[in-house]
């Protein structure tokens, strides 16, 4: 990856973080923590990886992305908006009674959303169905799905993994955000899902473990996904929940809480400073 491209992606990830803060502040609710931890992944997916066109969001031959951890809709919406699927100015209407930006992704109201999700464990099954459908139809379509490390306690996740491996869905890429925190605390304390790498390998996946905030590593992970034949890929990305906003980082309390006006100002101040630094690096 060129330094120029990396810098551009970093700026876009910073914009996504601003979108997350703008929308959750506007909603006075929502889930900033797990949205921020996946900001680089959302950014890379919608600007580098997915073959999608904001002008043709329902193109039947597009790649698909399913946000299985649907509560991190603010991250997905910000990435979609900055990619041109809908106006960035709409982000603060998140969760408003007259807004199309539902609290959890709705495929019928939000341009670019490929599956309605929110009930944990279900998105991955739909994604596996899409991947199977693409194979059945003989189409070159890749399907990606993002899960949380708390979410994978749902049994359905492992049912879907069995399915993806059984049908050799090498066009299927599951990404797990290992930010280590969930609503009730540390994932290792609430319900330990580790070691995820060994479990995913045992379930028949090609496993790639990366730092989810490093674009070089994200690029490498997807290169491995594309090179891997006959089996699905699982990207395990280690991240920091709340990444990019100092007081939200590594705080389970910011899983599902919106910043108040003062916190909003501080968060935006930090992100604007980060953006200015990136601009200066040019």
């Amino acid at each position, binding site marked *: 990856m060129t330094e120029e491209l990396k810098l551009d992606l970093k700026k876009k990830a910073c914009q996504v973080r601003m979108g997350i803060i703008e929308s959750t502040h506007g909603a006075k609710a929502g889930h900033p923590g797990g949205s921020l931890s996946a900001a680089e992944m959302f950014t890379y997916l919608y600007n580098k990886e997915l073959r999608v066109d904001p002008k043709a969001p329902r193109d*039947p031959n597009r790649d*698909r992305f*399913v946000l299985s951890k649907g509560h991190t809709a603010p991250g997905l919406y910000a990435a979609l908006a900055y990619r041109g699927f809908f106006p960035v100015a709409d982000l603060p209407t998140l969760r408003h009674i007259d807004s199309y930006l539902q609290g959890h992704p*709705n*495929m*019928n109201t939000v341009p670019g959303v*490929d*599956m*309605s999700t*929110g*009930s944990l*464990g*279900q*998105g*991955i*099954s*739909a*994604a*596996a*169905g*899409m*991947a*199977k*459908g*693409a194979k*059945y*139809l003989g189409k070159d379509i890749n*399907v990606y799905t993002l899960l949380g490390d708390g979410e994978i306690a749902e*049994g*359905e996740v492992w*049912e*879907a993994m*069995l*399915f993806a491996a*059984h*049908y050799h869905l090498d066009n299927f890429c599951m990404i797990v955000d290992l930010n280590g925190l969930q609503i009730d605390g540390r994932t290792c304390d609430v319900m330990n899902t580790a070691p995820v790498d060994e479990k995913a390998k045992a379930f028949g996946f090609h496993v790639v473990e990366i730092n989810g905030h490093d674009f070089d590593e994200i690029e490498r992970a997807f290169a491995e996904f594309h090179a891997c034949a006959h089996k699905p890929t699982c990207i395990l990305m280690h991240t920091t929940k709340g990444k990019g906003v100092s007081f939200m980082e590594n705080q389970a309390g910011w899983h599902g809480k919106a910043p108040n006006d003062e916190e909003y100002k501080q968060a935006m101040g930090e992100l604007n400073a980060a953006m200015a630094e990136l601009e200066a690096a040019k």
Partner: protein
Amino acid sequence: MSEVKKIATRDSYGNALVELAQNGADDLVVLDADLAGATKTGIFKKAYPDRHFNCGIAECNMVGVAAGLSTMGLVPFASSFAMFAAGRAFEQIRNSVGYPHLNVKIAATHGGISVGEDGASHQCCEDFALMRSIPGMIVMCPSDDVEAKAAVKAAYAYEGPVYVRFGRLAVPVFHDAARFSFEIGKGEQLTEGNDVAIIATGLMVNEALIAAESLKAQGIHARVINICTIKPLDEELVLKAARECGKVITCEEHSIIGGLGEAVAALLSEKCPTRLRRVGVNDEFGHSGPAAALLKQFGLSAEHIEQVAKEMLNG
């Protein structure tokens, strides 16, 4: 006189899938959860092996996979026993199929207590209630082979989520295929009569016909109505029967809670208060036994319908 032909509606389902594929339904795919032999999707699998995806014993994932397949332009029929489709995978049907209103058909076999020997764990008498509660869901329960095949084809042709319940037990074929027409949401009046209306679904329709025949011999004229589509209910037909008969009996192989009986009761309470009795499973679990004996024991029989009709007429 020749014996009445008996066919289980699950067989009708498997055969109808093949007929659909033979007649140009190229986007049809079928999913099962390790019960292809019992749900009869195995009939389709034999004819079209590359269009039948076994999902293993994982019904929740199967429903999600069906949702995903439908977004790719395919028309999936996902099958298991009613208990595990409507029951275990309820929330997947609600959130991954119903909420996005996807073109997925949940085709559940082994509904009701006529499952028989397997006992209560497999005798689903709650599926109508569960499926009716999902906004936008079509809920059907065909009564015989002719209607079951028509319901499968109508479900395929309809764009949106559909739940269809089929039975394990072979049941008499009383419809004449040559003169039969089917429309989702339309009920069917089978006999003339103004003394009492018997509104039935599934295998109880044939029991209602037998009861009506017996009542007729005693000078009581019952109007038998077949309701295949439990949701949306054919309100016009039900209201007309209530107005003209003044007494209504509902019959279903389902709990009296949440099924056809309550759908009819709600309609009549709001639009045409009418004396009503519900024949169904009375808020209890079933148990093991031969299907025919169980149906009799739980009051899901022509004799019981006849008895209820007489009680209403005498009371």
